[in-house]
């Protein structure tokens, strides 16, 4: 546990010291929110949640890429790949929670007649999904530019595709639109259930994939025997 916490603390320090990145991270979802604030209040909620997911995934992608140089050394120093992944996940989840908090307050103040609990749930799921999604991209695509382009494609598709079509359920942030509809348009709880199920499945699956990818990449090679 100590090792996980030390990795989380170090990852958090590294993130918090990138001040420009932090400012952009904080303002990025605001641009999404304001873009639809004038014409459709409900839509601005859906957009800000997507913006949060995009911002967090990008932060996780870059944090994962930056850690690649250090991780083999940490592995040799006695860490298991699980310590490294869980530590980094913890740090990024904490950043995600900090990032979402002001936007939740903004919605509380600015929006009325919406289901605030459901909006909080979207934000929790967004943090839970976006972080492993970004880390997984950094594990699979070692070059940051490639990962960024994939992220752009996924979030772009998420925004333009019809949420009612079956194909969109394969996108990681589909739950955001579904629960958003429940929260804003006061639809039946079917939207909530479908969104929650999809979000949970993606959060668990992506986290497991990140753990598995790190275990493969940082495995002890077969030719080496340490007695």
């Amino acid at each position, binding site marked *: 546990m*100590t*090792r996980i916490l*030390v*990795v989380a603390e*170090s990852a958090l*320090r*590294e993130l918090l*010291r*990138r001040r420009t990145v932090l400012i952009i991270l904080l303002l990025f979802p605001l641009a999404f929110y304001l873009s639809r604030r004038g014409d459709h209040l409900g839509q601005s909620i859906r957009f800000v949640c997507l913006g949060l997911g995009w911002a967090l995934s990008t932060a996780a992608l870059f944090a994962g890429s*930056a*850690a690649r*140089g*250090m991780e*083999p*050394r*940490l592995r*040799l*120093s*006695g*860490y298991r790949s699980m310590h490294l992944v869980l530590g980094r996940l913890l740090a990024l989840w904490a950043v995600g929670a900090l990032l979402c908090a002001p936007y939740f307050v903004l919605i509380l103040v600015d929006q009325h007649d919406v289901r605030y609990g459901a909006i909080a749930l979207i934000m929790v799921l967004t943090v839970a999904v976006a972080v492993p999604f970004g880390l997984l991209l950094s594990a699979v695509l070692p070059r940051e530019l490639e990962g960024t382009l994939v992220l752009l494609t996924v979030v772009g598709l998420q925004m333009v595709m019809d949420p009612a079509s079956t194909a969109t359920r394969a996108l990681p942030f589909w739950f955001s639109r579904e629960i958003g509809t429940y929260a804003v348009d006061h639809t039946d709880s079917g939207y909530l259930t479908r969104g929650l199920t999809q979000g949970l499945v993606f959060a668990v699956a992506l986290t497991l994939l990140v753990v598995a990818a790190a275990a493969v990449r940082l495995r*002890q*090679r*077969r*030719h*080496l*025997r*340490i*007695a």
Partner: protein
Amino acid sequence: MKDNAWLAALTGELRRHGVGPDLTGHVVAEAATHLAESGESPLRVFGPPEVYARAVADSLGGPDVRPPRRHPGPVRLAARGITKRYRGQTVLDRIDLTVRAGQIAAVVGANGAGKSTFLRICAGLLSPDAGTVQVHGALGYCPQDGGTAEFLDPDEHFVLIGAGRGLGRATARRAGRAGAAALDWTPPRTQARHLSGGTRQKLNLVLARLGEPDVLLLDEPYQGFDRGTYLDFWHEVWRWRDAGKAIVVVTHLLNQLDRVDIVLDLTASQERTA
């Protein structure tokens, strides 16, 4: 310059000039006694520490190059038949290396001879096409570059690596700072990205040593070191050897090879396969 600072500088300079630890202790103790009794400034009495140390070393007839008496211990690292190919070209061909506790092995060879590749295979960071590596004890690895976190300062690096080795925060910081002092370096509270190349390599080296691993794999760790630090580095390596560590150093500087126990020349391996 105050007495203690001058005496500390003299100790380092004597070591750099190859004066053995016993004689260094004796010279420094004599100088300290003289300064205490006379109450004079060391710069006035002896001059700058580097000049006085050179005079002492010259009076002894040059650096002490006698190898200390050593009895190599059990095998710590055994690499057998290591073969590695890149794009159809054989870089390493059935390389063997055995290093015992209390031995230094230098891996030498021309650029592209596969020195770093061999070390990465020994560290388990890269898989060979054939061959095995057996390590008895904990491994410490100092890469040629990278290996540090840009936004963490040296103390935070010590805590991070130390936790992996099972050290508490205070112990890790103390051990890191002691390792840094041996390289004549006081770690600043500056993030690694602001350190110079040579200073970052000092940090890299100290991190490799944290937790006293039994086997040290050092990949040209002295890049960017000034002459004094380079000499300090070799003195540290010899000290680690005397403490029973098994050390593998990748190097292309051949002037220290008379002070190592094993030389593995990978150029010869490439010529054999050409």
